[in-house]
């Protein structure tokens, strides 16, 4: 656990049949911070995310996590190392209960889990930890509800609880507040803030008030390239950023 940066990319590039979606991105995410990735639509944020979690393979460039080159690893390996992502659309296991949802993640600690000859009751040891995670995100009342029956905002909360169950060192959140009403946004923002202790968070977000409240550092992407970097103030005062992203309405 050394080094200032948890995650570093070097000349990260992704081309789709001639179209360059991410181009020579050198991203450095500092340990223990909340780092936001913003930019206009189609700037390559989601693509960048997919590259970092290996849901896409980079055309060029390297990705280092804690100094280790992870460019060639598989998605599941990345998760194993402690980098866990959330999805732009909510990702829960719909017909499992809230408790089971979280337990699936906790169960990961057992290793392979290929032991098909053991009764499922061996998993009960995780119940306690699962309940505490569930209460952290305010879902205690829904412990036995099927995930599919939760309202949208609570699904996001469940997703975060599941993600935290892996005790990840680094969290990647893709538009955690997309499509939420104001109240939910505030709750999720508070939750992100709370879980950021001892962790590094990289998130994509369009909601500038969330970005300005939460993030320590912001990278602005346009057309696949880094346009600007810095804290909210620096970035929002950058005229290029204002032109390409914020428009005239924001100060």
């Amino acid at each position, binding site marked *: 656990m050394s080094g200032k940066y948890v995650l570093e990319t070097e000349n990260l590039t992704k081309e*789709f049949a001639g*179209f360059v979606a991410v181009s020579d991105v050198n991203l450095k995410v500092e340990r223990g911070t909340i780092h936001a990735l913003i*930019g*206009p*639509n*189609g*700037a390559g944020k989601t693509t960048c995310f997919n590259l970092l979690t290996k849901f896409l393979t980079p055309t060029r460039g390297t990705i280092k996590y804690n100094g280790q080159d992870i460019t060639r690893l598989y998605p599941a390996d990345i998760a194993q190392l402690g980098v866990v992502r959330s999805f732009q659309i909510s990702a829960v296991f719909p017909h499992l209960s809230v408790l089971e949802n979280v337990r699936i993640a906790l169960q990961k600690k057992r290793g392979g889990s290929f032991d098909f000859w053991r009764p499922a009751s061996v998993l009960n040891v995780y119940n306690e930890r699962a309940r505490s995670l569930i209460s952290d995100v305010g879902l205690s009342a829904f412990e036995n509800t099927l995930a599919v029956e939760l*309202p*949208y*905002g609570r699904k996001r909360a469940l997703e975060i609880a599941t993600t935290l169950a892996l005790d990840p060192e680094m969290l990647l959140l893709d*538009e955690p507040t*997309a*499509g*939420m*009403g*104001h*109240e*939910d946004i505030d709750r999720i923002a508070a939750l992100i803030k709370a879980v950021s202790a001892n962790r590094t968070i990289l998130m994509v977000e*369009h909601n*500038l008030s969330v970005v300005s409240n939460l993030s320590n550092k912001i990278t602005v992407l346009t057309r696949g390239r880094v346009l600007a970097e810095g804290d909210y103030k620096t970035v929002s005062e950058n005229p290029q950023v204002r*032109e*390409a*992203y*914020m*428009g*005239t*309405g*924001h100060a």
Partner: protein
Amino acid sequence: MLDRVSGALLEISDLQAWYGESHILHGATLHVNEGEVVTLLGRNGAGKTTTLKSIMGIVGKRTGSVKFEGRELIRLSSDAIARAGIAFCPEERGIFASLDVEENLMLPPQVRTGGLSREQIFDLFPNLRERLKSQGTKLSGGEQQMLAIGRILRTGARLLLLDEPTEGLAPVIIQQIGNTIRKLKEQGFTILLVEQNFRFASTVADRYYIMEHGKVIDEFANSELNQNLEKLHEYLGV
């Protein structure tokens, strides 16, 4: 103007709707006059999208009355409703991956005369002209939104239903969409808009309806906005 219910372009009364077993709309009543931009506001799950879908006839089951130009639509199938002259731009945009931009644009058949021509649409959204041959879903989010709005302008439908046209868009693009809506209004289109983003809605709307639990619970004109900020805060948490 607020009271002019009869003779409105679109009149909805006691609209109820279900998805399978779940009863979502519990008797929404509202109307849209010719040439207006009307915005539906409300929290997540209030039933805004469902209202638009019920107008278009794409929910599981609906009852009540939806009158367009005086004609009852509640028994018609969605294709017949579209042909009656209403066009819908859905929340998730609905750009077709297997069609290129041009095919996407030309897809909805003309239902009436008087729609915009291709050139007029390109003038409105210059970005589209450059990317005619790319696959529809490879456009950026904002361009997809432009495409989604552009393609229903060709059809000649005079009433446009736009569901959260700004969701997930960068602020700069949102401004652009706002400009477009104002231009469309100038050209004589009538628009029923659903928005979460109140800040944006306030730049385009003539009138607002507030929805909660599948009902319209309040209504005011843009001119009365300042008197109603309190209420809005209460309803929406803005």
